[in-house]
């Protein structure tokens, strides 16, 4: 009887800890929706870079990456807000900015990443990728969505609106229960 009780108490403790882990990420994501400025987000990547992003050239497979550029001030403004958002969490977490691509409803791109290099969705190096269904839900409904697809990972996806009230971006507040200090150091 006693061992069983200990196991149950331990499980309840772990669940409570899990809840706290997810709740902190969700709290930060809620703040991100308020604090991140959608108009600034729209101005980050230059029109020229967006133009090159989907160009195909068999002789130049780096065309999109080599022509990728951003507006410094808009990038810095949003990045600093995202860093502050991540600091609301009591453990290492990142707040990443994702944006849809006009004319390509089936695609999405990460626009800003942060210092722990944590994301549940970014395949390393991609300029854009297939739309993440949960992000599509956030963009369409304006609701936050919690994703725990990869074992040990939690990402809370929060909508970002511009001054017109349109949802223009998604913030992914992400962390990993067991951090790998060496992953993505490359």
């Amino acid at each position, binding site marked *: 009887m006693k061992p069983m009780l200990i196991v149950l108490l331990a499980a309840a403790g772990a669940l409570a800890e899990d809840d706290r882990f997810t709740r902190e990420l969700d709290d930060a994501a809620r703040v991100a929706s308020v604090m991140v400025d959608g108009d600034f987000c729209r101005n980050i990547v230059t029109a020229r870079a967006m133009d090159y992003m989907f160009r195909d050239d068999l*002789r130049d497979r780096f065309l999109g990456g080599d022509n990728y550029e951003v507006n410094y001030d808009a990038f810095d403004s949003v990045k600093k807000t995202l*860093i502050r958002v991540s600091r609301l969490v009591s453990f290492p977490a990142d707040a990443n900015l994702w944006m849809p691509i006009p004319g390509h409803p089936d695609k999405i791109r990460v626009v800003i990443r942060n210092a722990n290099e944590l994301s549940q969705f970014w395949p390393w190096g991609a300029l854009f990728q297939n739309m993440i269904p949960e992000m599509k839900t956030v963009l369409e409904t304006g609701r936050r969505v919690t994703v725990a697809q990869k074992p040990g990972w939690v990402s809370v996806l929060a909508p970002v609106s511009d001054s017109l009230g349109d949802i223009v971006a998604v913030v992914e507040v992400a962390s990993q229960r067991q951090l790998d200090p060496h992953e993505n*150091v490359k």
Partner: protein
Amino acid sequence: MRRALLLWCAAACAPAAELQVQPEYLRTAPDGEIVAADRAASGHARPSALAGARLGYVSLQVIAKLSAPGEYSLEFTPPSGLEVDIFREWYHALERQKTYYPDALAPVRMPYRSRLPEPDNRIADQKAQAFWVDVWIPGNAHPGDYPLQFRLASAEGSAQVTVPIRVLAATVPDRDVVAIDHNSYGSSWIGDLFERERRRIGKDFYRSDAFFQLIHAYHRIFYEHRGVFHQLGYGHAGKVGPEFAPALEGSGRGKHVANWDLFDRHYGPLFDGTAFARTRRGARPVPFAYLPINPEWPASYLWWGQPGYEAEFVNVVSEMDRHFRDKNWTSTRLELFFNHKKRYMGFPWDGDEVRFPGDNRYFREYRRLLRKAVPADSPVKFVFRADVSWDMERQSKDLAGVVNMWICGGGILSWYPEVARAMTQRGDTVWFYSGPPGVTQVSAKITEFPLQAWLWGIDGYVHWLTVSAGPDPWFHFDGGGTALVYSGERFGIEEPIPSIRLKIQRNAVQDLALLDGMKSRRPAAELRAEAARRFNGSRPQDWWNPRPPLADRPPSEWSNGAIDQATAQTRKMLAKTGAGSWENVHEFVMQLAEEMK
């Protein structure tokens, strides 16, 4: 002479069990035949003896052949006064090409007993096993001929061969005339390559002595092969591996170093040279190392452009300067280097390969911060390194006095000889970069890079990635375009093991050191011209490309296709490199060395 030639071919004439000797540049397949890439050089005239200078290596290959499966043993009689290392050549299965090439070298002890086919290499019709032989000539060896004898024993019979090694009076200079760098990123790959060791130690592997010993072993293997090893310790968004930087605490003016433990265990033996204590080249601090500094370390990007950024940067970098002085770590050039690219979405500017000139202002700001953090009279050698390509010409002028170590894209640098000249004339360090040639290219391909650096009059060359041999280099090999060493774990060795390409490169760098040392006897231009001619019939000026019209347009308008077209001339010239190209240069160097008696 006649006797020596007889000895060379004695094995080939034997009826069953055979011992063949091949020079370093002719690699053989599991059937004993020369691999396709090197075959055209098989008719190259062979010297009567393998000549080498003191404090240098002479290399050759010995091939044991049997006509049918069976056991064999190989033993040798080392020449007194010389040191001999023997390695079994691993035949890598190349899936795409459906063939085998030897490259990884597993150290073996003599006598070596095994069977053909070699059980672990799993090649059903293997009839031959090649061994790489390194002969080290100590500084106190007496000039003269030394016989190196090998004996093969098997049920098919026995064979023996004697190779004369000619020790010259000349000595290979200790310092290299070109630095050949071998780059890598992070250290998670060490746990992947040494999985057994990682499992044995468990969750603390990355803080264990075994882990740091492995890092030091990588530095050692490249050092012993007359090279440099770099390990970048941070990611594109600023994540720093814990062993690459001191642990920090605090924020703003209160930010400071909290703990040096992992950093010191990592770098201490490298910066004081003790990691190299038991090497033939002797203990010496590493010449170069990356610092962990990036836009997110030690200052948080949250404060970029605000007083807090400068406070955090200056506090911590000043502490680093003091720590290095206290430890007397003043020999290594410590590189402030930005590797990030904006396409990886961490920061809004390119630290690596700037293309858009607006990014150059960040370099000026970091130089200002570095000057503020480190007193001008500090004995610690902080350098500002930039890896440049697109905007190289403009950066070389705009960032003169800001950046003093330039790692240049080789293709683009090839049409800017005046840029290389200006950088070197003001005392900056200049290297160029590319990647290791795969194993299916001619064996001497790897010697092009040190020769090119020397012909260009610059300081070195970087192989951008040299430790990543792919998920299964043994039976599903990707060709080795990102690897020059392998994990020794498969052979029970908890250290990296070398490759044939690394050995060939080392011998070329050694020859260049010797050749460059002859500038006091012959004009440098004459030495360069003769080396280029012997290598592939070229002239030193053929190693540069004409300035293309695109160089006068903004780099943002260039494409990689246009750059390829603008480097066609040197590519065409280098297409003439054959397996025996370096051997021709080596013969020239040995000829000059013999004249130095």
